[in-house]
C-alpha cells in the first residue's frame, strides 16, 4: 500500500498578542490508502490543527505535508489537494448550504466544473453511499442531526476524494445519529476503500478504527492498534483520556478472576470473549 498522507517534521506555531504558541511539533505521520485512523487527544492537544494541515487549510511553518504525492506548500496543488481530501466538521448546520439535499450534495462537483449529467450520477451514488436514497428533494435544515451529517458526508464523497477527514462529527448528535454516522463511515471505508481520518472524544468510537493516533501537547504520543492503545490505561488517563466502557468492564471482570482477554474494546468483542 502506498502512503496517501506523508508528514515529516511538521511544526505549526500560532502568534497571539504577547506570545508564540507551538500547536504542532515534530509530527511524523504516514497514512496508507484504505486505512481507518482515529485521532484522540484532550481539548487543545492539536488534533484539529493537524487535521487542517491534511488539506492545506493550514501550511507548515517547518517540515512537509505530502498528500498523494502533492506538497501542500505548492500553491498550484491547492485545489487538487482539497478535492482529494474532504473535511466534515462538528456542527452539521454550519456545513449545509443549499435548499434541497441534492443541491447541497451537488455543490462540490459543480464547483469543480463537472458535467451536469455526471453530477446527477455522482449525487445519486453519494446519497446511496450514506443511506439517504430518496431524500434528494428534502430540505436539509428539516433533517435530523444524523441525517444532516450524512448529507455533509455525501457532499464530500460526491467529489470522489481519496481521504475523508471528520473532526468530531458526532459531538452534537443524539445516540442514533451517532450510530448512523459511525456505520456510514465504516461502510465507506470497508466497501469503497475510502481512507478515513476520524477525530473524536468518544473512546468507544475510536475503538472501531484500525489504528489510533494519540495527540498530546502538539506531538504524537502514541500510535497503534486500539487493543494496544487501550491497554495503556494509566498513560491515557494522564493525558486526560480514558478507555471505552467495554475495556473498563473487561478489566473489572479480570480482577474478579474471569479469564478473558484484556484487549476488549467493543460490545461485539466482549460477547465473543464471554461466550467462548
Amino acid at each position, binding site marked *: 500500500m502506498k502512503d496517501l498522507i506523508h508528514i515529516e517534521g511538521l511544526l505549526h506555531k500560532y502568534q497571539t498578542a504577547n506570545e508564540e504558541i507551538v500547536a504542532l511539533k515534530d509530527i511524523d505521520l504516514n497514512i496508507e490508502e484504505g486505512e481507518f485512523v482515529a485521532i484522540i487527544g484532550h481539548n487543545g492537544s492539536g488534533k484539529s490543527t493537524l487535521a487542517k494541515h491534511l488539506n492545506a487549510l493550514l501550511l507548515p511553518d517547518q517540515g512537509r505535508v505530502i498528500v498523494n504525492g502533492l506538497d501542500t506548500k505548492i500553491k498550484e496543488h491547492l485545489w487538487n489537494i482539497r478535492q482529494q481530501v474532504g473535511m466534515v466538521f462538528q456542527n452539521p448546520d454550519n456545513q449545509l448550504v443549499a435548499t434541497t439535499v441534492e443541491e447541497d450534495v451537488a455543490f462540490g462537483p459543480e464547483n469543480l466544473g463537472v458535467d451536469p449529467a455526471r453530477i446527477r450520477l455522482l449525487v445519486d451514488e453519494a446519497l446511496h453511499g450514506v443511506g439517504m436514497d430518496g431524500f434528494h428533494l428534502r430540505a436539509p435544515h428539516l433533517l435530523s442531526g444524523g441525517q444532516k451529517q450524512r448529507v455533509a458526508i455525501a457532499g464530500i464523497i460526491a467529489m470522489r476524494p481519496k481521504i475523508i477527514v471528520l473532526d468530531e462529527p458526532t459531538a452534537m448528535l443524539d445516540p442514533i*445519529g451517532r450510530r448512523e454516522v459511525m456505520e456510514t463511515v465504516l461502510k465507506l471505508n470497508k466497501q469503497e476503500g475510502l481512507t478515513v481520518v476520524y477525530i473524536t472524544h468518544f473512546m468507544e468510537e475510536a475503538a472501531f478504527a484500525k489504528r489510533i493516533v494519540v495527540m498530546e501537547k502538539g506531538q504524537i504520543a502514541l500510535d497503534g492498534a486500539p487493543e494496544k492503545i487501550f491497554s495503556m490505561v494509566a498513560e491515557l488517563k494522564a493525558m486526560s*483520556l480514558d478507555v471505552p466502557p467495554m475495556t473498563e468492564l473487561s478489566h473489572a471482570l479480570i480482577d474478579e478472576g*474471569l479469564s478473558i482477554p484484556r484487549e476488549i474494546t467493543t460490545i461485539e468483542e466482549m*460477547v465473543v470473549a464471554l*461466550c467462548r
Partner: protein
Amino acid sequence: MSIRLEDVSYTYLPNSPYECNALQNIDIQIEEGEFIGIIGHTGSGKSTLIQHFNGLLKPTTGRVTVDDIDLGSKSADLRAIRQRVGMVFQYPEHQLFEETVFEDIAYGPKNMGLSTEKISSMVQKAMSTVNLDFEKYRYMSPFTLSGGEKRRVAIAGVLAMEPKYLILDEPTAGLDPKGRNEILVNIEQLHKKEKMAVVFVTHSMDDIARLADRLIVINSGRIIFSDTPRKVFKEYEVLQKTGLDIPTVGRLMLELQKKGWNVRNDLLTIEEAKNEIMKHAREVGRNA
C-alpha cells in the same frame, strides 16, 4: 416548593405556514433537590422545554410556576426567577466575554446590585465549586483556557447567582473524557452537598443512567416516559425507535441474552454489569 408545568403547549410561529407544535400538553413537577435527566432526539423539544423553566419562553397555553409564582402573571419578577433558576446553555463558553475570569463570573452578581465584598465571595465560592483555583485563574483571560476550563468558567458564572434549580443543556458536549468527568463530578457534588435541584439535558445514556433520580423522555414535543432510569431503559425498543438508546452495558446484556444467557438487561453501570456477569459465570460454573 417546585417548578411546575401544567398542561403546557408551545407553538412556534402560530398562524403562519411554518406553524410548529414544539410542545404538547406537558405536565412536569421538579421538586427541590431532585436530579432529573431529560433525553430525546435532536429536535424533540428538549431545549424548548427547558426555556419554559425560567420564563425565557412563555407557553402558548398552560401555566408555569416556580415556587408558586406564576410566570405568566404581570407581577412575576422574572429577574428574580432567573436568579433562582440558573440556566447553562449548550456551548456556554461561547458566551464568555469579559477580560478576566473573575469579571466574567462576577457579571451576574454585579447585576444583582451586591457589594464588592459579597460579589467577590460569591465568585470565590462558585470557582471552588467547579475546581478552578481562585488565585491562579482570577486574572487570566477566559479565552486562553482549555475547552473544559472555559466550560467550567461559564458554569461558575451561573452558580455565582446561587440558584436553587440548575438547568444544564448538554453540558459535556465536545469535551475530552477528563473535561467531561470533571463537569459531571462538579454537578454531582452540587446536587449531593448543596442539595441543588439539577435538570440535565443530555445525549449520553451512560452518564444519565448513573446520575439521575428520574428520567423524562421527550418525543415530538410530548413526554413519553417519566420514571427512574432503570424503568425507562427497560423500554429499549421504544427508545431506539425515537432516536435514543440504552446504556452501553444494557446493550451488552441484550446481546448476551441473544446467546442464551439468563441475565437482566436493565443495568445502568459497569459495576452492575460486572456483578451480573460474575453471577451468571458462577451459575454455569465458569471460572478462572
